[in-house]
């Protein structure tokens, strides 16, 4: 288990308050709720993009909230994916490996494995700017997991895909997560995501966990 404590944030008349939250350290935990419930704020505070002064996040004997953002070793797939458009798919993924100073051999091995798992081989050399939605989504996932993060965050990862691609993408993502056993927090408002992927479901409403 990882334990989140004292997550409090107040803005524009809205108060988010999660005094204590146990997140399983295996499988996929889904945080769901309607628009405006505070999901994105929870997500951004946990990964460190927004300040939350009293926050504690105990995981494997460390308080991740006290670590600088790069040292938390989190893998994140944003809703907007945020691929570097001037780089190829392969360069995007290897860029993450390089940032974590993985050796070239190891990076190449991991890239090949991921390319197989996520069926990316045919477009690895293509610029990110010209990838389709489904392809870009897999590249973003591969970039997030190539460094074997401590925790994986997925923020509405399937929302930009059409219905057909979505079910295929869910299956692929779930397979990769199960293979590498990353503890994962999935942020979503889509009930189908919950049914297809979540091991644990946590509901957020008006800034509070139900």
């Amino acid at each position, binding site marked *: 288990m990882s334990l989140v404590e004292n997550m409090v944030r107040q803005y524009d008349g809205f108060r988010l308050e999660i005094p204590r939250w146990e997140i399983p350290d295996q499988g996929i935990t889904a945080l769901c709720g309607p628009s405006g419930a505070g999901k994105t704020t929870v997500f951004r505070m946990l990964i460190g993009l927004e300040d939350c002064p009293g926050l504690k996040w105990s995981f494997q004997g460390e308080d991740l909230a006290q670590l600088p*953002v790069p040292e938390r070793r989190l893998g994140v797939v*944003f809703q907007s994916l*945020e691929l570097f458009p001037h780089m190829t798919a392969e360069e995007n993924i290897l860029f993450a490996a390089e*940032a974590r100073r993985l050796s070239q051999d190891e990076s190449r091995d991991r890239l090949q494995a991921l390319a197989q798992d996520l069926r990316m081989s045919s477009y690895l050399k293509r610029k990110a700017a010209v990838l389709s939605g489904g392809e870009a989504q897999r590249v973003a996932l591969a970039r997030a997991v190539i*460094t074997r993060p401590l925790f994986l965050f997925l923020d509405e990862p399937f929302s930009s895909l059409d219905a057909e691609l979505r079910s295929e993408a869910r299956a692929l993502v779930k397979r990769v997560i199960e293979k590498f056993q990353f503890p994962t927090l999935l942020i979503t408002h889509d009930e189908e995501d919950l049914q297809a992927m979540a091991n644990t479901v946590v509901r957020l409403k008006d800034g509070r966990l139900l």
Partner: protein
Amino acid sequence: MSGTKFFHAEESSRLGLRWALGLLLLFPYLIWLAEVREWNWPPVHEWMPYVVYASFQALLSAGLACVAGFLMFQGLQSWHRRGWAEAALLFPNIIPPLFLVMALFAVVTPWAAFPYGLSAVIVAHVILNSGLVAVALDRLLQAKLGGMTETAWLLGVRPWVFWRRVAWPQLRGDLACIFLFVFSLCFTSFSIPLLLSGERSVTLEVAIFDIIRTEGRWDKAVLLAAFQSTALLVLAWLLPRPFWPQRSSRASLRLLEQPSLSVLVLLPAALLVTGWGLGVGASLAEGIEPFVRENLPSALLLSAALGLSVGVLHLILFLAVAYVLPHNRLDRFLNGYLAPSPAITGFGLLLLPVNGVIADFIKLVLALTLISFPLLYRWIVHSALASLQNQIVIARSLGASWSAILFKVVWPQAGASCLRACGLAAVWACGDFALSGLLLGENVSVPMLMNDLLGNYRFEQAALLLIPLVLLSLAVYFFFVRAARYVVG
């Protein structure tokens, strides 16, 4: 009037207004074309030194402003109170240049003789523009690479790797655009070099001013101005992308922060405030001279009238533009049009055969408006109007008249931006001394009094006038930002 007739009348009035706007903005050029009879292109050796020297000055000024702005941008990322930090960075840009010059005098003269010339102009330009570069960089990164910066931070990418591998390949065009924008500001700067450059003209604007004043060569001045406008147009066409994107949702750029540089954010504003404090402190000890005491009330009145009139004329023009847009050709014209040089505008209006106190005042209001309107439109108003284009199309398809669209759709949303721009125009007009000197001749406004006192080495007395001028500038700015909103609706 029947519905169809009303719509026809509206379309005709919009067409007429578009032409009137275009002609009004081109007015100074048209006067010159009509009034100057003989055109002789001066030999290269007469004008090339001005161009080379002005380019050298602008290159150095813009280069150093960009370096300083880049450092300030990194410091800015450590600030939690972003609004205040950005206001401090942009502060030197929104005050009249005379205020900056006064502060520099106050800081330097107690220790050494003021170093008139190229170096003084460059230092003033760097103080003036470095904050603008920092804020422009911040907006650019937020708008184009906000999410990517967050991603890179989470991935553990180091800042210099991000700059080299992610930011530079994607933003080099925009960065060049920022540099060229600052270059064009320094290249065409007028008031600062007029006060600080000493014997040698460091910009074409000052050269034009001197050529007309000392040589009486109007044709040579116009040709230099035409050269300058052409050069700037070429720059604008080379890099037509807008460098000042609207602020989108705030992404975290903490990857790029440099806490040790955060103090730099306050440096230009602190320098100005310290300078004014020193100047006013010294002048209070000395007391007000009778000459200043006698002339101050009428000068204040004229400066206030000038600021308010220029602000109101801007308001009328912004309303007219909001009424006639969207219109592709006019929009392109307004975005590409460069204001004529202050010297060309001022001397051009002097050529008009209408004189007298009221006429001269109106000419001055018009001249100040023609110079600041294009910049303020591009800088503040254009993005506010452009964001409403879809709403205008929808309102039109619902059958709304253009006047209803203006007052019920456009003004409620873009009015605040327009009034802010009017407030800035009013502040700049209150602080003008160069065009006022040209068109009114005598020391009739507060900045003209200050300029006269500076010319006579009575710095303390000039500094004393900063107090009423700052108060007046604040009053006219807030008049437009707050009070005028109720008047216009």
